[in-house]
């Protein structure tokens, strides 16, 4: 994996400053129903290839980020603020 991750707020920072949460799954609406919630909590696409995941910039700005990474090579190729990503998917 790249040693430096380009945080949209802090610039290039060492990877060790970040904590990886896991797949960037979208939280369903509270009334979305059992199937949607079951899928959100337990089911994962687990792709072999491009993958979006939540990272926390724990030792930096402490913002949640969505990092795009290839699970075959560990190459990271995109870092966005999680709130901005959520905003995009809402609009």
């Amino acid at each position, binding site marked *: 994996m790249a040693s430096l991750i380009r945080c949209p707020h802090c610039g290039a920072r060492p*990877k060790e400053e970040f904590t990886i949460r*896991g*797949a960037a799954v979208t939280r369903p609406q509270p009334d979305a129903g059992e199937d949607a919630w079951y899928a959100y*909590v*337990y089911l*994962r696409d*687990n792709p*072999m290839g491009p993958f979006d*995941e939540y990272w926390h910039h724990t030792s930096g700005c402490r913002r949640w980020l969505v990092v795009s990474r290839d*699970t075959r090579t560990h190459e990271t190729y995109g870092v966005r603020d999680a709130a901005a990503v959520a905003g995009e998917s809402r609009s």
Partner: protein
Amino acid sequence: MRYSALSVFLNGLRGNSNWAAAWRQPEPKPHYDVVIVGGGGHGLATAYYLAKQHGIRNVAVLEKSWLGAGNIGRNTTIIRSNYLLPGNNPFYELSMKLWEGLEQDFNYNAMVSQRGVLNLYHTDAQRDAYTRRGNAMRLHGVDAELLDREAVRERLPFFDYDNARFPIKGGLLQPRGGSVRHDAVAWGYARGADERGVDIIQHCEVTGIRRENGRVVGVETTKGFIGTNKLALATAGHSSQTARMVDMTLPLESHVLQAFVSEGLKPFIDSVVTYGAGHFYVSQSNKGGLVFGGDIDGYNSYAQRGNLATVEHVAEAGVAMIPSLSRVRVLRSWGGVMDMSMDGSPIIDRTHIDNLYLNAGWCYGGFKATPASGFCFAHLIATGEPHATARAFRLDRFRRGYVIDEKGQGPQPNLH
């Protein structure tokens, strides 16, 4: 050919040039009663027990790489049955019992060595947790012994007992735990299955699953279409990929776990020991190398290699536990792709497709499970009923709220 002391002796006299190949290299037949995808430990053991226990011999094991290329040849070879929860404990104890008779059963030297597994504790809370676990084990008829600090010191005098942050206070010992030569497990099962008629087909990747009228009729492979009455998936770290071929999404993530081996040393440590603070565990191989590892790296990966942060953590934890380790040189490190499930426990079950069976979710602990996993999966495939010790490993337990979460971490695979 049966292996025996006499056969080793006689072949030795002939310069070891007369050994027959341990298994054939067959071309796939057009159709089988059962096709197993994945020639790792679990796939091979399943084929062996299908043939041996259930007389189902028209079976193929399809492996995309060479036999033993996956986690069966990458793990740190530890076996134990020191589980807390009722869903897990009888299953892993069945596995331990099968290990105890395995070499005689499949006539192959797997170097099963019950040298003991010791889990160290460093705090009162950890001691309480281990006491509880030890009691649960004993209630299930499994051997467990709680050692205090002095008893641990007697066994392992060169550990750091007075580490300021994590002093060693004692440990939970399972004397029947130990290690087994992992490659030999794959080879022994492969040979035993082959002998009974199973076709082990290497370098044959399954690329698709063909269905007709809601049933599986066969698999598309790099060696063409192969028909089957029943299809069994045992693809470990690639389970999400093979399940996707029938549009199934599994409660799994694939993660990387690293392991390490040092230069060969004189006899140094005679059991398996795990550090209770920060993850580290170590044993010594029969060749003298220290085999050790730690936690998974913590991110999804199919790369079969990890990152340096984990290497550093493992080295730090190891030296905190055994200061003299700082002078040992590491020879190799490697990684394997593991199927981390949402509760840290495995799945041995049918699926929504009548003749498709699933074996997955073994996390970092599937080596010790190999015999029981094959035994129970074969039972399920042959009889249609789950084996009594594997009833809890259902695929629908997540939806129904019956998760088996030994660590109590919740649905967060990178913490299991």
